[in-house]
């Protein structure tokens, strides 16, 4: 028996180093940064990329991961706002679950401004948002509301659309 346990411990050693299990927040943040590669804004600043995060001040992960970093030849800037009236020029608006009660108002406020809305709020894409992140069996999934994206003048790469769930229209 002792030999069996020893083999088990050795297995631990042989098999390291390892792939990572990451936190949901970290995976969400990573998807948020990567998605810009697959989406074209109507007009875009060639040097800077701005992400605004609403009403999620306790989560500094986005800031730590991206602020002032050069990704795909663009300098990322992360802004935090407390309510939608404070929104300024931005490429992405990340709407955390804390905003679910005010979602309709937030989406109304950014309508027609070519801002990519991203959220993990349940039913976000069906409620008129553009990109929804959710987790299924510990794996991240994306749901994109294509009609809403087109209405906001986004061009989404077909390679992205192939690997995400696509829905159409405001399904409220």
């Amino acid at each position: 028996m002792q030999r069996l346990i020893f083999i088990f411990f050795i297995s631990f050693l042989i098999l390291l180093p390892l792939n990572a299990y990451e936190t949901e927040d970290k995976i969400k943040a990573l998807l948020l940064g990567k998605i810009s590669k697959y989406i074209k804004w109507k007009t875009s600043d060639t040097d800077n990329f701005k992400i605004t995060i609403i009403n999620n001040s306790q989560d500094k992960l986005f800031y730590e991961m991206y602020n002032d970093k050069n990704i795909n030849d663009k300098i990322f800037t992360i802004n935090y706002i407390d309510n939608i009236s404070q929104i300024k020029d931005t490429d992405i608006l990340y709407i955390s679950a804390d905003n679910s009660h005010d979602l309709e108002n937030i989406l109304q406020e950014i309508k027609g401004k070519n801002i990519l809305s991203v959220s993990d709020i349940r039913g976000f894409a069906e409620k008129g948002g553009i990109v929804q992140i959710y987790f299924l069996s510990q794996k991240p999934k994306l749901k994109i509301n294509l009609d809403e994206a087109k209405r906001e003048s986004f061009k989404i790469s077909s390679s992205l659309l192939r690997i995400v769930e696509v829905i159409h229209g405001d399904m409220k």
Partner: protein
Amino acid sequence: MILNKKSIVSLIFIWSSLDATDEFLDSDFEDILDMKSEIKVDVGSRNGNRNFLDSNVPVDVITYQQIDSSGLTSLSNLLRYFVPSFNAPETSVADGSDHVRAFSLRGMSPDQVLVLINGKRVHTSALLHVNGVIGRGSSHVDLDTIALKSIEKIEILRDGAAAQYGSDAISGVINIILKGFGHKNSIAIHGGKRKAGDGELLHTDLFLTKQLKYEGFVNLTLAVNEQKKTNRAGLDTRLDIPAQTTYVGLPHQKQILAVLNIEAPQSNNINLYADATFSHRDSKASAFFRPSNHNENTNLVYPNGFLPLINAKILDYSTTLGIQGRLSNSIEWDFSNKMGYNCFKYYVDNSMNYSLGLESPTSFNNGGLSFMQNSTNLDLKRSWDKFNLSSGIEYRYENYKISAGDLESYTGTGSQGFAGYNPQNEVDSNRNSYAIYIDSTYKFNDSLNVEGAGRYEKYSDFGSTTNAKLALSYKAIEELLLRSSASTGFRAPSLAQSNYSQTSSFVDTDTGLLSTHGTFKLDHEVAQTLGAKELKPEKSIHLTAGTVYQLSKKTFAMVDYFYTKVNDRIMLSNELSGVTPTQEAILESYGVSKARFFTNGIDTLTQGIDIKLKHEHIFEDESNLALTFWYSYNKNEVINYNESTISKESSLAQIDRIENGQPKESMKILTNYQKNNTTYTLNLNRFGSYRQVIAEEAYSFDAEWVADLDISYKIKENLIIAIGGHNIFNMTPNKWDGLSGIYYGYDGIKQYSRYSPFGYSGAYYYITASYDF
């Protein structure tokens, strides 16, 4: 040996530091979508789900993928093979206990485990174990009423949590999370049999899902199974030609199960939810064989003797309805009602009532038991920057009934095998309770997290109780979490314990008169004169201290020490006779020779340690290996006797069952390897030694290793065939060492102890086909 223990530990530290480099930002998009995220758990805190490795208290998780690759079809078997401190023996020839599987955590009582479905309290079975089985004196949740295919994951909290969830959360909490959004329709058929050729099992599952708007869903799981009996009885030497006369093994069971889980989010931020479970089990087991000379009337009806068959029909269902939402000030609210009902009806076939002689029927309706529980909760939750606060109120109503059987089942000597409940046993008792609770966490910084919880609860029968919990975790370094908790808890006496009675009569060989004995309700004059008092709640104190070391994000080690002291544990008294003239007079007036009743008889102390190592690895060829090593040690001691009638000497069988009847040590080595379309699962289980007392002598049984193997092959994307076996090397426990006898003994009818943690039916081999559509 090239590597000693010290060098192994050093290597692990070095290797883990090499793994610390974060190449996260360079990942490809598709790789990110293929990443596995952390496993989150709800149980253990009312303040939202969190990574189970960062929990202030020890929590384990079994996922539906593990369930699928286990080849197991019942929840009690699944937990027995995945959780070392979980024990669920297979009892036989023990009346109702054959039909509802008792289980325990850490060798404590089955009613000291709280079971939740989707975070809501599950009702217990109406059955009260009164024979000499593991769990004697307890009513507990019947785990096998929940279809395995309906389960997304099982969370097991290894800590007292009565300050959060109320009564029963003493040795732990099992939270069953039902499958939610995103699963596929599936059908599975499982068939197998024992190596000995009996115990055929045919099990079919159907899982149907329909998506609703906003990731809502309606999930329906249906399961049907038939488990034929196994028989490992020894020869009955009372016969002229010794033969196998009694069924000793698994009962013959037919069961239908259904589970419904619904979430219907609305556009206005409101989520409507509901779940329901249903189970009907028809279970047949036997009593001991009655040879033709068992009674002077036996051969009037059965010239060759007879084997009474106890048939239990068990109906169990529950419904939950709830509504939840979030206010504009970020307060989350949840209002719900959960009702659960369990009804256990006894029928005895192939039997007779000796008192009725030739007029005796051979089949009897012996009456039944039922239990209903209805809980209504309102929960509120709010998060701030570092502070989370949740609170709630709960109202609960419970009802317990005993219904008498047919007159022929209880009159005179009653039906052989199991005498029916008589009208004096009938009871319709209820109580209510309300509770108010609060649970808060405060994150001082990235390293230190503190949780405090308190719960006040008032029961209509025994009064009020207030309990508190303090837990904290500290990350000494990023990879190392230290955690500890201290709490008080309680377990309310069950309505069954306060109200159960079952008396039966036999012919006193000295006087030739009918004499009554059995279990008496606490307020019965017989129980009162023998010293019965109103039951108090069991009170507990819990301490845990442990550590989680994450060598990498896919490798961790957990070590947790636990301490649980239970005061006033409820148990059955010894069988008592009248001692004083008053007692003798009262017992005589009822024709009672011996009586027993429930009492807060003892104080117990349970201590132990859990060690768990888990590692997962994805190889370059995308094959995947998961290894888990889990060792558990617990020691149960009776540290105080509260009644003069109970002592180690006078109650040896009961006390030894508590202290030594269940394995102190157990170990699991779980291996799962997946390559291309094939998945190999090999689980090695070590069940520690245990003891059983017969006729005031303790008999020991050896520890055993048992292996389970499952190999599944994905024929098409949606079609999987699996073959496997449990206890594949056909291990059986050792027989009674030195005990010879007709009923119990190496040469008797029951050759093995009913306490055996892995049963005694031997190897089981199966094939399973599952199809997604």
